[in-house]
Structure formats: structure tokens, C-alpha cells
């Protein structure tokens, strides 16, 4: 799609410009609501909100460096069936990728959704955002953050530092923040026919296609890929044995917050919550006798290894797991490291395409002969 338009920025306030853009979208009758992060109270973190009254968009701030939850899960809830309206969802690249994975598993639908992706500069984890914001006005905080981009950046979450997908894929509209002159304009591109028709209807001025975005993205990807590889090395160095892994997970209390926060951990009822893992007293005693001692609760390493088997191939590296862990275990780093290898071995990139089925849902007659041994 070649259409590129400009969102003009007045008075050096890109947030207001984006809000105007969203209002423009809502004027189109086909859009019944916008899912966008909003500052709802004077304090706290901006939360994804479904807005149907354009006037209330004055609290919207998708550029805020906050990422309390992966809205793919929320969009899934909004699209599991008919809502009667079409929704425009403003999402980060990892949220879109996670949503694509959920759509493949019938947990959501793209039928009545317009995905508005934005180039992602990263975000703080929850504690980091609170510290960065302090007592300041939330919009001021966002402006401060935006000002630091290109000037050494800010201390964003590990997941964001290592994320090599700053540009959204599979979106209908893309806000090209990377490399944009935030005193001038933000380029907005259509990446699909329906994105195209919406954009044409907004009557925005056209932009020249070359605006330094590609260069900015390439630079971001290079830095982040280096961070990512360094993260892999670091993590592998301390998880090379089961004992090391247990140590890495030493503070894990089986609260399962990482699972709840994970957008692609899609089960309604995790198997670890079912009676399969309802162990009896004599079983605990038996296992304790087998080894001499038994850490309680059990099934800590088992849980993480199982989660790796179940969803490492869909892991989009959003980092919500680390964000959610009450005991600061770097779950994201562990999972991304494992996922790098499993995804590569199946040549699978989560969120890349709706036509790519999850690897364990399909099989071929002749493949992976390396997994088969001949010992007779």
C-alpha cells in the first residue's frame, strides 16, 4: 500500500495530534469504538480503555511509556463473537503479534477490528514507570520520554530493550513514529485495503514516503538485536543445568501470575490448576522420601518447563511475565531464550502470518527425521 498521510502536530504536542487522529477515525461511521490506553485517574498507569465517545479521547495516550498489560488478551475478549460494532485498536507491535496468535487459536477475530499499530519506542515495566513519572502530570511524563528518544533513550524494560520488532506487522494503519520529527508531523500509512479506505476518508495531507523512518527503525533493530543476543548469552550462562534453572527460579512461589499476564497462554483453566496436579499427602511424603527432601510447593520447574513446551513457540517477547512476577524473576529472559531456539527449529515466527498454523497443530509425513533414533 503506498498511501502515506501526515498527522500534523500543533504546539509540539504529538499526543494531542494522535488523539485528534483517533477522533477523526471515530467520525467514520464504521468505527464504533476505540481501544486505546487512557490516563483515567490522576495517578496510576494508563489502562487500555474502550472509548465510544470521541470527547473522552482527551485522556488517551498511546505514546505513554507504560505497558501494564498486553491488550491482545483484551481485544480477544472483545472479538470472541459479535459486539455489533467495529473497533479500532491502538496496539504495540508485540500486542498485534500476540493477537494474531490468539486469532489462530480461535480466541479472537480480525473481522470487525481495525488494527492501528504504532512504531514502538519501548516502555517501562510497572515499577519503572511509577518511578519515572513520580508526581508529574502523565502527559508531561510522556512528552519527557518522547524527548529522550534519540538522546540516549530511557531505561525501558528489558523486554523492550531486546525487542527486534519495533515496527508493527499485520496492522491496517501504522503510525510511523520511528524517526519522526515530533515537532512537525507523524506519518501514518495504510497497510491493508480497509486501512486504505479509512485513511482516504480522513482527508489528511499526503506525505512524502521517505522520511527517515526506515533508517531509524534499522538503527533501533540493530541496537535491540545486540541487546537481545547479549540477553540470550547472559541467560544461557546461568541456566545451563537443571540445578541452575532451579536457582534461577528460586523465588518462584507458583503464583502463576506470569501465566495470567501472558497474552498467548490461552487456556481457560491451566492444567496445573486441575486435579491432575492435586497431589495427595502420601504422594508428597513418597517423593520426599525418594529424594530425602522436597521443596514445597512442588511442580515449580515442571510448571515452567511445561509452559515452555506449550507456548514458547508463540512467545512474542512482550515481557508481561517479568512485569507480573511479584518476586522479580526474569521470566521473560528465560522464555525468550528458550523460544529463540524452539521457534527457529520449527521455522516459526509468532504473529508473522495468519496463514502459519501453530507448529503443534499440524504435521507432515516426512519431517524432523533428526528427532527419530535408530537403535536396533
Amino acid at each position, binding site marked *: 500500500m503506498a498511501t502515506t498521510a501526515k498527522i500534523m502536530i500543533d504546539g509540539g504536542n504529538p499526543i494531542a495530534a494522535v488523539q485528534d487522529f483517533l477522533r477523526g477515525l471515530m467520525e467514520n461511521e464504521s468505527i464504533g469504538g476505540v481501544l486505546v490506553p487512557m490516563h483515567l485517574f490522576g495517578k496510576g498507569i494508563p489502562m487500555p480503555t474502550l472509548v465510544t465517545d470521541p470527547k473522552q479521547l482527551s485522556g488517551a495516550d498511546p505514546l505513554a511509556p507504560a505497558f501494564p498489560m498486553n491488550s491482545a488478551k483484551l481485544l480477544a475478549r472483545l472479538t470472541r463473537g459479535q459486539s455489533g460494532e467495529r473497533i479500532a485498536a491502538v496496539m504495540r507491535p508485540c500486542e498485534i503479534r500476540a493477537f494474531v496468535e490468539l486469532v489462530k487459536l480461535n480466541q479472537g477475530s480480525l473481522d470487525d477490528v481495525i488494527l492501528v499499530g504504532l512504531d514502538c519506542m519501548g516502555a517501562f515495566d510497572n515499577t519503572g514507570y511509577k518511578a519515572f513519572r513520580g508526581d508529574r502530570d502523565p502527559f508531561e511524563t510522556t512528552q519527557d520520554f518522547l524527548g529522550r528518544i534519540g538522546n540516549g533513550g530511557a531505561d525501558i524494560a528489558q523486554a523492550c530493550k531486546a525487542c527486534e520488532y519495533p515496527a508493527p506487522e499485520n496492522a491496517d494503519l501504522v503510525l510511523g513514529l520511528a524517526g519522526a520529527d515530533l515537532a512537525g508531523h507523524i506519518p501514518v500509512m495504510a497497510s491493508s485495503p480497509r486501512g486504505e479506505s479509512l485513511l482516504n476518508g480522513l482527508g489528511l495531507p499526503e506525505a512524502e514516503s521517505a522520511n527517515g523512518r526506515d533508517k531509524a527503525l534499522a538503527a533501533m533493530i540493530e541496537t535491540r538485536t545486540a541487546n537481545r543476543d547479549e540477553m540470550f548469552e547472559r541467560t*544461557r550462562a546461568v*541456566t*545451563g*543445568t*537443571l*540445578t*541452575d*534453572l*532451579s536457582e534461577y*527460579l528460586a523465588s518462584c512461589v507458583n503464583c502463576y501470575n506470569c501465566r495470567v499476564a501472558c497474552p498467548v497462554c490461552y487456556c481457560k483453566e491451566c*492444567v496445573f490448576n486441575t486435579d491432575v496436579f492435586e497431589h495427595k499427602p502420601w504422594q508428597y511424603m513418597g*517423593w520426599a522420601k*525418594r*529424594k*530425602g*527432601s*522436597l*521443596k514445597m510447593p*512442588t*511442580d*515449580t*520447574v*515442571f510448571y515452567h*518447563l*511445561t509452559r*515452555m*513446551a506449550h507456548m*514458547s*513457540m508463540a512467545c512474542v517477547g512482550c515481557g508481561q511475565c517479568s512485569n507480573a512476577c511479584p518476586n522479580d524473576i526474569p521470566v521473560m529472559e528465560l522464555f525468550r*531464550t*528458550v523460544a529463540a*531456539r*524452539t521457534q527457529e*527449529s*520449527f521455522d516459526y515466527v509468532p504473529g508473522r502470518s495468519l496463514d502459519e498454523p501453530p*507448529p*503443534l497443530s499440524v*504435521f*507432515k*509425513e*516426512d*519431517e*524432523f527425521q*533428526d*528427532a*527419530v*533414533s*535408530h*537403535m*536396533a
Partner: protein
Amino acid sequence: MSHEFEPTILAFVCNWCTFTAADLAGTSRMIQQPNLRMVRMMCTGMVDPKYIVKSLLSGADGVLVSGCHPGDCHYINGNYKARRRVKLLNEILPQFGIEKERVKLTWVGASEGNEFAATVNNFINEIRELGPMEARSMAVI
């Protein structure tokens, strides 16, 4: 080569092929080392990766999954699904020091008593060389 350690191995075998081959090996009195114990599954496609992980965390030094040859699966294609699942574990477990050689997938057909006995003995020998699973002594599972 120290013989103080004797491995314990669990095998998840499919009813129609490998389990039958095991019966045949038994009827033919093919002597095997006693370290391998079988769990009867209807098909290798029934083997949940959790069974393999649980076995390794609970005291098994090696896990064998064995079923029908490709194309012969009694349930048409269960063995292809098993192959993908074992492949996945082969990518995850070695990252934590659980050698790929500890989890193996083989095809042993119903008439292959000979191959079953040889597979069992060879696998036991291999695991004996690899040594005990780290998890044996771990209090954390």
C-alpha cells in the same frame, strides 16, 4: 567406566506396534537388561510431553518413546504428531543440560522383537554412559 550407577529408564510404547514387539521379544526369550520399564499407551500420539518431563524430574535417567513406523500407525498418523512433540522437547530440554540423548523416539514394528530387544539394551547402555539425571538428587521439581 564405572558400573556403580544403574540407570532407570521409562518407555512409553504404543499398544499396536512396540508393545506387541515387546511381547514377541519376551516370547522369544530375548534377554534384556532390566533397567527399562514400560508404560502402555494406545498410540505414541497419546504421549503428552508432560509424561516425559515428569519422568525425568521424578527419577528416570532416560525416556524412550516407541511406536509404529511412519505410514503404519494404527491410528493413521499419531506417530507424526509424536515426532513433533519429541522434536520440541529435544529443543527445550538440552538448554537445561538434559542431553538430547536422554529422550529418544524410535519406531519398532509389531513383528520386530529382535529390534525391540536390541533397542532396549542399546539405550540402557547409552544412558549408563551418560550417567544419572541431575534431577535425581534435586529437592526442587
